[in-house]
């Protein structure tokens, strides 16, 4: 018994040692700082005000280069999102021209956007997008917040299962937008690239997209609703992109809470039923 325990303890130590020793992957940037998101954790919800601000940043800045092709105008008015009104969405969609057709004469035509239309892309195709951006197409942003991550390492990734940490994506987007710092002196920056602290390899084809004061956050009272800083813009647009990537998150967590409460009750009932049934079982005699 003692020997087994000793050996088991030995195995555990070796396993833990092996898991924690090796270093991180080589070319990845520094770990993005963790932002305190309103939507993290089991009861996390999007802040509609923040999503509206993030949408404003996207629309006024990022939309010049980045598409958002999986998002429709009507999504902007749906529950669990930025909660624009149906009227606002209709008016917004109408500001855009959308290609439709062919009509009865067999011709394509342009018409004002409707709420069911997808967000219009800035470029007709990836090649055009790349050509206009020094050879690198700006990626679609709809799923960006789920399509980027960074290594959490052992044992953090194990704790993440219990703390439900799932915000690597928005953390990274926020870090990327605030990561346009002075390049180290000995760093060799190729032409057309910009230094970014958090982009893998540090050379990004996206020039610093946003500066302090660039997007107007003034409310009806003429005062800014939130600081007009790069840091705040980055948080807001990252939150907005988390919503575009996971528009059903609030419904998911709400249903999850009910499902888990139900399952815990059911587990208790089944367990006591089992106890009762087995208690009545006579001893094997």
């Amino acid at each position: 018994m003692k020997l087994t325990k000793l050996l088991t303890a030995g195995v555990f130590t070796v396993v833990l040692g092996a898991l924690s020793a090796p270093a991180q992957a080589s070319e990845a940037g520094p770990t993005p700082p963790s932002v305190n998101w309103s939507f993290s954790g089991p009861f996390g919800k999007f802040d509609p005000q923040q999503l509206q601000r993030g949408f404003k940043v996207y629309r006024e800045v990022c939309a010049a280069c980045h598409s958002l092709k999986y998002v429709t105008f009507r999504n902007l008015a749906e529950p669990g999102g930025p909660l624009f009104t149906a009227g606002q969405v209709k008016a917004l969609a109408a500001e855009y021209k959308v290609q439709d057709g062919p009509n009865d004469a067999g011709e394509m035509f342009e018409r004002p956007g409707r709420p069911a239309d997808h967000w219009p892309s800035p470029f007709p195709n990836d090649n055009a997008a790349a050509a206009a951006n020094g050879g690198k197409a700006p990626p679609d942003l709809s799923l960006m917040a789920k399509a980027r991550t960074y290594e959490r390492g052992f044992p953090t990734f194990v704790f993440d299962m219990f703390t439900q940490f799932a915000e690597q994506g928005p953390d990274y987007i926020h870090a990327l937008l605030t990561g346009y710092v002075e390049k180290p002196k000995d760093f060799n920056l190729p032409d057309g690239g910009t230094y970014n602290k958090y982009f893998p390899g540090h050379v990004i084809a996206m020039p610093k997209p946003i500066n302090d004061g660039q997007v107007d956050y003034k409310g009806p009272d003429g005062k800014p609703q939130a600081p007009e800083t790069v840091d705040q813009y980055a948080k807001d647009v990252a939150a907005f992109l988390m919503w575009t990537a996971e528009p059903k998150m609030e419904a998911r967590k709400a249903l999850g809470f009910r499902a888990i409460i139900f399952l815990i009750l059911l587990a208790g009932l089944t367990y006591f039923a089992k106890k009762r049934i087995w208690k009545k079982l006579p001893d094997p005699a």
Partner: protein
Amino acid sequence: MEGHSVYVPKSGFTKWLEARLPIISLTHSSAVAYPVPRNLNYFWTFGAILTMMLVVQIVTGVVLAMHYVPNAKLAFASVEAIMRDVNFGWLLRYMHANGASMFFIAVYIHIFRGMYYGSYKAPREVLWILGVIIFLLMMATAFMGYVLPWGQMSFWGATVITNLFSAFDEIIPGVGTWIVTLLWGGFAVDNPTLNRFFALHYLLPFMLAGVVGLHIWALHHVGQNNPTGVEVKNICKDTVPFTPYATVKDAVGVVFFLILFAWFLFYIPNFMGHADNYIEANPSVTPAHIVPEWYFLPFYAILRAIPSKLGGVLAMFSAVLILAFLPWLDTSKVRSGNYRPVFRVFFWLFVAACVVLGWLGAKPAEGGYTLAAQILTVFYFSYFLIILPLLGLFETPRQLPGSIAEAVLAKKAKRAAPADASVNG
């Protein structure tokens, strides 16, 4: 196996039906009267859990297939449409994706359970081999399913894994290339590959269900093993009828497992996935690290531990296939690890080795990682080929209880008089 009771039809209809198709008595004998060893622990509920997971995968899969478009240009967008526009589509898709992971968690526990309690030994060899076939079919199904959303990891995972078969060219020139071309339906992973993988991904789960049927048939013929590893000697004393005893206990296992499933499904649905798979497949951009799904990682680590391509491929397939020979590699007369003090230590070392191999499979194949994977690969195979055959000959097992009933009574007596309080000190 003889059951606890026999079904006797009473009403006119059941008599009529029984004379033509004895389906009620079949159900009765296999789900009600079937004798279950009375000392089974909760590790024996994983069979029920696996059956449930198979049903979950098939039901969610069939509904997903109603909305999914198996076309390289449309697949990715169709999965996004499921996530955004289909009513509760996000639930279906996350259930199916996380369900696959849960399926593997359950099957690994189920397999390790069998390995610890010696459930593969006579007369359960065929039952065990059917289990290995199920495991293989599950792996093939999950691999092809993962290709369907047509993300970057789908595409590049498929490219790397299908390319492995070209190693067989080193044995018979041309055969490897032929297999790869057949899998691809062309000269690269592309639309034809996606189409055939979808067809097979739809087909294999039903074949799987068929083999599960055989697996359960074999089980009900030879009876379940149990924690003592001692065979049932007296049905009345050693066993209980399946219903209500095993039914309710399985229900407890299933519900607790569902809580775990719900935790991942509703709160961290992308924890076990890869961020890269939210980028649409692009043959001209290779991801920085191509990593298979977590459940393949130990085998992937073994593949990469071997410096030669053919060697790696053979080692990887052998690592799974060697399981089928386990009944003949383990020479011990005693089944259960509870009575094998030295085996127990090696068993847990083996489990640890598999976990660490899994972790290494996710790391880049370089330097210290490769060396560690090589050492553990050697240990993995030594466990089957050296340790188990020799242990059976040299180990002195502990005294086995005379029967299951005896073991149950001894345990009860011990619980009634908890004399030795320092046991866990």
